């Protein structure tokens, strides 16, 4: 991945906590451009992304060379190494901003007049908004706390930087259009410029009133009210706004994206001073009487869907009740919705089988509110936001185990597909995610190495850094990053099976076509630690063949680990000596495949194992024989005591006979 230019020096001990977002921490930094004539070092601001979030690479690429006035300038972005420690962070460098227009969304601030809003807020940011729209991207972080005075004179306002967190992640629900307001902030769509216009409308409303529109309402209650009476009525009803401001806010807070004012209308209002045509506002159809769900009440199909998704476990009972059927038929005024819901719920009975109940609720939500986000149990997302949601859930580990399981079920059973069909034509990113989801259906529930929800995460998002504890602090997005991160690991990290956690295997499998299922199984499934380590190193060698960078520290550490493991497991001294010699030579070279020169030779380890078994058998046989012989030795004396006289007798007899025969032949005594 792109390395941040060394001219930017991030001061990690100088936090700018007021600028922090949910995904990034802000720090002071200096731009020490070494180019001759560049002048003295200049202060800039660095946003460092925290692990667990999808990096906004695509959005930032869309903002490359963005020079239009009206928005904080993005200076650079890329991966920055931490001084001293081994980690790396993804950094976004922006030019410094003036004072924040509103330091907080919950506290009151100074209201602005229409004139000020038109001349000092809307007009200055209009060029930036036009440029954003022309690039077919979106800012997705327009809110009062992300507006800044351009300079100390506090004359004009500019938009704060985009992409300091995933799209829409830091926007409270009331700053988002209804569909996005009902979506988990971690899982919102990124490229919809009309969402920026809605956020602009709410922001201008807040600047005009000096406070947020919630007043004393809870965010969920505000969303429910918006679903029943429309966003404009819910947020503006009861407030005293000028006619001019009311026109602008009404135009931008239209719930229908098609009817919402565009930049042309905003420019007419702010620049030309003309009054654009008011938008066509379709009021939500309200039921004759409300229906109760838990502690809430719903008076429309959409608000019912919203409440059902918040009371999922009780929804099955409601949907199969006579009360609900009656309400649908007699009180709900939307025929098309009634037809759809009746088809889904007719004949259904309450069930304790969770899967069946979930499907009923899911299909009912689609029938009641097809424009809403995809909702399943505690999950709600838009397709483009799904990778970030999966990443955040997995990064939380055990505490989000249930949601991770729900995500797996959702993907494996294709529960999202009906909803995706209802969305009609999808944008590029949404279409890409949909296509990836189809391919992950069988992979997501497999526990094989490199598969599972982890694989799904990295396949869904090429910009998701690896969450393996081994490299989570190193912002590893591609294979090059992985090689660099592994090369920087301290030697203490290199222990048995260090390369086999689910995240790193899934990351490798998704980023490299050479890392096949077979390679992964061999890296994890072999019986001996040495055989597994050899396969794991082979995997890294495959990665290096793509990344093409030398990694001398990594090869040194791998060589040491191989030496220790080989020393324990290779029995034959000849093979061991050869392997250790090869490792000694290959360690500093930085080429991973050189480490396996002898170990990879066909059958070397197997021959060593067989040889050892045979030697052991011979040794044990010898040990048994030794025991028998030592036993015999102790009995030798006794044996000699028995055998000796017998032999002596025979020798004596033979000698006597021989002596007599000799004397007879010699004629002794004759």
């Amino acid at each position, binding site marked *: 991945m792109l390395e941040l230019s060394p001219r930017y020096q991030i001061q990690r001990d100088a936090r700018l906590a007021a600028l922090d977002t949910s995904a990034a921490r802000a720090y002071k930094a200096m731009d020490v451009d070494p180019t001759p004539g560049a002048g003295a070092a200049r202060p800039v601001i660095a946003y460092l992304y925290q692990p667990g979030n999808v990096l906004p690479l695509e959005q930032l690429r869309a903002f490359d060379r963005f020079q239009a006035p009206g928005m904080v300038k993005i200076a650079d972005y890329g991966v920055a190494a931490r001084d001293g420690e081994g980690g790396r962070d993804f950094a976004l460098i922006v030019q410094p901003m003036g004072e924040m227009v509103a330091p907080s969304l919950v506290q009151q601030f100074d209201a602005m007049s229409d004139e000020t809003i038109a001349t000092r807020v809307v007009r200055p940011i209009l060029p930036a908004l036009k440029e954003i729209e022309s690039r077919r991207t979106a800012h997705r972080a327009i809110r009062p706390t992300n507006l800044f005075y351009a300079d100390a004179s506090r004359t004009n306002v500019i938009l704060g930087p985009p992409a300091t967190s995933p799209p829409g992640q830091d926007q409270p629900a009331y700053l988002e259009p209804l569909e996005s307001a009902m979506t988990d902030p971690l899982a919102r769509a990124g490229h919809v410029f009309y969402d920026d216009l809605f956020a602009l409308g709410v922001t201008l409303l807040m600047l005009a009133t000096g406070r947020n529109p919630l007043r004393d309402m809870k965010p969920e209650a505000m969303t429910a009210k918006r679903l029943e009476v429309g966003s404009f009525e819910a947020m503006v009803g009861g407030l005293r706004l000028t006619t001019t401001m009311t026109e602008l806010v009404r135009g931008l807070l239209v719930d229908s994206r098609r009817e919402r004012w565009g930049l042309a209308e905003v420019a007419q209002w702010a620049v030309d001073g003309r009054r654009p045509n008011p938008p066509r506002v379709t009021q939500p159809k309200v039921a004759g009487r409300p229906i109760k769900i838990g502690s809430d009440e719903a008076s429309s199909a959409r608000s019912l869907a919203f409440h059902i998704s918040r009371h999922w476990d009780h929804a099955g009972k409601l949907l199969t009740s006579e009360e609900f059927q009656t309400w649908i038929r007699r009180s709900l005024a939307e025929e098309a919705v009634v037809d759809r819901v009746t088809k889904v719920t007719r004949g259904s009975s309450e069930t304790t089988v969770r899967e069946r109940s979930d499907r009923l609720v899911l299909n009912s939500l689609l029938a009641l509110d097809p424009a809403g986000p995809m909702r399943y149990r505690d999950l709600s997302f838009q397709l483009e936001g799904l990778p970030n949601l999966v990443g955040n859930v997995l990064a939380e580990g055990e505490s989000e185990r249930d949601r991770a399981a729900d995500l797996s079920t959702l993907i494996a059973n294709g529960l999202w597909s009906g909803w995706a069909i209802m969305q009609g034509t999808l944008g590029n990113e949404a279409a890409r995610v949909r296509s990836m989801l189809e391919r992950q259906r069988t992979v997501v529930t497999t526990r094989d190495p490199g598969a599972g929800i982890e694989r799904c995460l990295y396949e869904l998002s090429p910009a998701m850094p690896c969450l393996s504890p081994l490299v989570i602090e190193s912002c590893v997005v591609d294979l090059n990053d992985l090689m660099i991160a592994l090369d920087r690991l301290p030697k203490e990290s290199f*222990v048995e*099976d260090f390369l086999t956690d689910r995240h790193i295997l899934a990351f490798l499998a998704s980023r490299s076509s050479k890392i096949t299922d077979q390679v992964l199984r061999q890296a994890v499934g072999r019986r001996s630690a040495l055989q597994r380590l050899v396969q794991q190193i082979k995997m890294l060698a495959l990665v290096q063949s793509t990344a093409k960078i030398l990694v001398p520290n990594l090869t040194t550490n791998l060589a040491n680990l191989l030496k220790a493991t080989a020393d324990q497991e290779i029995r034959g001294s000849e093979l061991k000596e050869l392997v250790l010699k090869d490792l000694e030579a290959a360690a500093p070279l930085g080429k991973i495949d050189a480490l396996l020169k002898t170990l990879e030779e066909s059958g070397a380890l197997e021959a060593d194992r067989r040889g*050892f078994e045979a030697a*052991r058998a011979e040794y044990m046989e*010898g040990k048994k024989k030794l025991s028998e012989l030592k036993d015999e030795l102790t009995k030798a004396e006794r044996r000699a005591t028995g*055998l*000796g006289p017998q032999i002596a007798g025979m020798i*004596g*007899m033979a000698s*006597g006979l021989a002596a007599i025969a000799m004397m007879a032949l010699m004629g002794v005594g004759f």
Partner: protein
Amino acid sequence: MKPLIWLFGIGVIAVLFRPTAVILGVGLLPTLLTFLFDRTPEKFGVLCIGSLNLAGLYPVLMPLWTRGHTMENAMKALGDPNTGAVILGAAGVGCVIYFATPPIVSMVVRSRITREIGEIEKRQGELVAYWGEALSEDAGFGNATTAPALKHKPVKIPTRGR
């Protein structure tokens, strides 16, 4: 019954072959002594010393039988100091054989066993030198237990505060 037969046999020889009986009676005294002290059931000592004792009596008995089987010749032979030397010398050789043979046999047996033990131990040493001390352990090759330094670290994704 057997001793009676022996006694009868000795009696007949003593009566019919008096000179020979006298020579044998005196000359076989070493054998008789051996018989009395030999504790082995098979009486291998008697066999060993007796055989050589008899061989020692041959040069005394042959002249008696070929030159006159008389009491006078028998007494003359017994009175010859050389006769005693030959008889006792032969019996002495028998004694040496009888008492020296068991330790020699023991030494030979022990030597063979010790040599075999040495060969096997040498081979064991060669095997251990090549294959390592694990050869003598009960654990099999490729056992999952590894040295503490290589123990697998538990893997956990750190949770973050939100």
